[in-house]
């Protein structure tokens, strides 16, 4: 138990540009763009005849776009019918689950090559509608009637973390500032600007309109101002990930066929998945995610690696507090100590453990059902040394981890990649 019965590799990965793509692009349009990007990045090419099945991760096309049954829809668009095509749902971890199920199917010997698709088109609904759809990922029977929104649940977790460990709003702001610095270097990101850029452009606009010029000394002042409105105390707008449309595509192959597609496959050496009670009030801890701990335990055990062996990670920063909690739950730092590491710059691109060099959900964007697959796209790029602009880390990445959390933490998928 807990071992892959044969080797599994990531041989190709790609994505569409994330953003408010609707109505210019809907799920089918973004998916085909992601597929073409992944085909282009597969060294020796890949064709539908090479692929045995299509696994689609999507959270809520039913509510966002009035469209269910995405498995065959996505398969048909890239020539994969009549092969098996299925959709997987686990809130924001939907394509993390699809990816993991593809790995398991290949390890089992049922399939040799699986195409994983992650898609979500959120901006077809107005913001209030998006908020309402996202709330269905938490408990709609008892949390929702008590007023819980999705940011509200993470804000509640933040209040408990602040109380127990002395975490501050400045600690949260450092996560947002770092991730925006990274997203600025990602041509696929929704917001390709640092918070300092955003602040300066606000000041220019105010100057141009003849308004009173704010006395912001730095990003922290800006982030504490009315220009960064409160959403759910202590979380403000810049603590929240974006509402995004996007798609990502992965090609996964069995070890003995991987070389047909590339001479340099990225090996998947660890996969783990965990769960927690859907309602936060039913969980033992309000400052840690048991689903993350369980998924990480399985993935570390399978790979034989320990947290200290991981060189770089992409973690699920749907809210700034979530990145802090993830760094602790994944075993990188002791509880309450991740904020010190962030403050010391350890998690920056040139730090000892770069986190979310893609820009994270905060800046790259968070098309919920596509996010899990998009993490693997960044792993593919960083491990091959092909990340765009100045985003590529300056060392050879041999061991990388991705962490994909669903809802308010009730599902988690952790994956470990090695060269």
């Amino acid at each position, binding site marked *: 138990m807990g071992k892959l019965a044969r080797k599994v590799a990531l041989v190709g990965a790609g994505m569409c540009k994330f953003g408010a793509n609707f109505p210019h692009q809907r799920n089918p349009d973004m998916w085909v763009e992601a597929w073409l990007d992944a085909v282009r990045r597969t060294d020796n090419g890949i064709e539908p005849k090479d692929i045995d099945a299509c696994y689609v991760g999507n959270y809520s096309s039913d509510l966002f776009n009035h469209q269910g049954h995405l498995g065959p829809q996505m398969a048909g668009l890239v020539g994969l019918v009549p092969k098996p095509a299925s959709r997987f749902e686990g809130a924001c971890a939907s394509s993390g689950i699809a990816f993991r199920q593809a790995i398991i199917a290949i390890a089992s010997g049922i399939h040799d090559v699986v195409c994983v698709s992650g898609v979500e088109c959120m901006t077809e609904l107005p913001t*209030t509608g998006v*908020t*309402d759809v996202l*709330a269905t990922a938490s*408990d709609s*029977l*008892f*949390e*929702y*009637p*008590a*007023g*819980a*929104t999705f*940011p*509200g649940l993470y*804000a*509640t*977790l*933040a*209040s*408990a973390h602040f*109380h127990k460990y002395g975490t501050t709003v400045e600690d949260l702001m450092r996560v947002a500032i770092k991730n925006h610095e990274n997203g600025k270097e990602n041509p696929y990101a929704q917001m390709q600007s640092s918070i300092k850029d955003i602040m300066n452009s606000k000041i220019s606009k105010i100057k141009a309109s003849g308004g009173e010029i704010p006395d912001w000394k730095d990003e922290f002042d800006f982030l504490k101002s009315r220009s960064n*409105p*409160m*959403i*759910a*105390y*202590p*979380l403000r707008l810049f603590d929240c990930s974006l509402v995004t449309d996007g798609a990502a595509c992965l090609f996964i192959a069995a070890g003995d066929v991987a070389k047909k597609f590339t001479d340099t496959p990225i090996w998947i050496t660890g996969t783990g998945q965990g769960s927690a009670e859907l*309602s*936060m*009030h*039913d969980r033992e801890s*309000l400052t840690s995610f048991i689903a993350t701990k369980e998924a990480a335990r399985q993935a570390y055990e399978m790979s034989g690696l320990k947290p200290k062996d991981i060189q770089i990670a992409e973690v699920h920063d749907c809210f700034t507090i979530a990145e802090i909690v993830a760094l602790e739950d994944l075993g990188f730092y002791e509880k309450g100590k991740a904020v010190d590491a962030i403050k010391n710059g350890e998690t920056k691109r040139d730090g000892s453990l770069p986190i979310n060099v893609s820009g994270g959900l905060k800046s790259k964007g968070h098309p919920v059902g596509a996010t899990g697959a998009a993490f693997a796209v960044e792993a593919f790029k960083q491990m091959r040394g092909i990340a765009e602009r100045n985003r590529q880390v300056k060392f050879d990445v041999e061991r990388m981890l991705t962490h994909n959390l669903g809802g308010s933490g009730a599902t988690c998928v952790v994956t470990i990649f090695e060269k």
Partner: protein
Amino acid sequence: MSENERDFTIKSYLDFLAEKKLMGSKCKNCNATYVPVRKLCTKCNTANMEWIEMSGKGKLAAFTSITVGTPFFVEKGYGRNKPYCFSVIKLDEGPMVSGQLIGVDESKPETIKIETPVKAIFLETELKGETRVDLGFEPV
């Protein structure tokens, strides 16, 4: 209907709330207590429950003050200029529950302190000619 003739369902739990009673289920086998109600005890894997009424007393475990609310709360008049508090309360009997926290200064959330003792209240809302009752809490 007497308490222990009622099924251990969500409907029964909500019916009790409408009667302004916070009821949980207690496992007759291992004494584990569940609020909201559960039929199956996941501590000992038996389905042998009895209803118990909660004292309604507890402590604030975690909270937020929400300015961008759910449609239900927006309909109740909450929003940017009138935030509301969502809270998780640790009941004295052990379980945690979610509820709106009132009687605090929602617009100054930094003044709200975790571990503040609270008691349950039953919040009535008139919506479309019907009265609904939701669980809430206020400082003691």
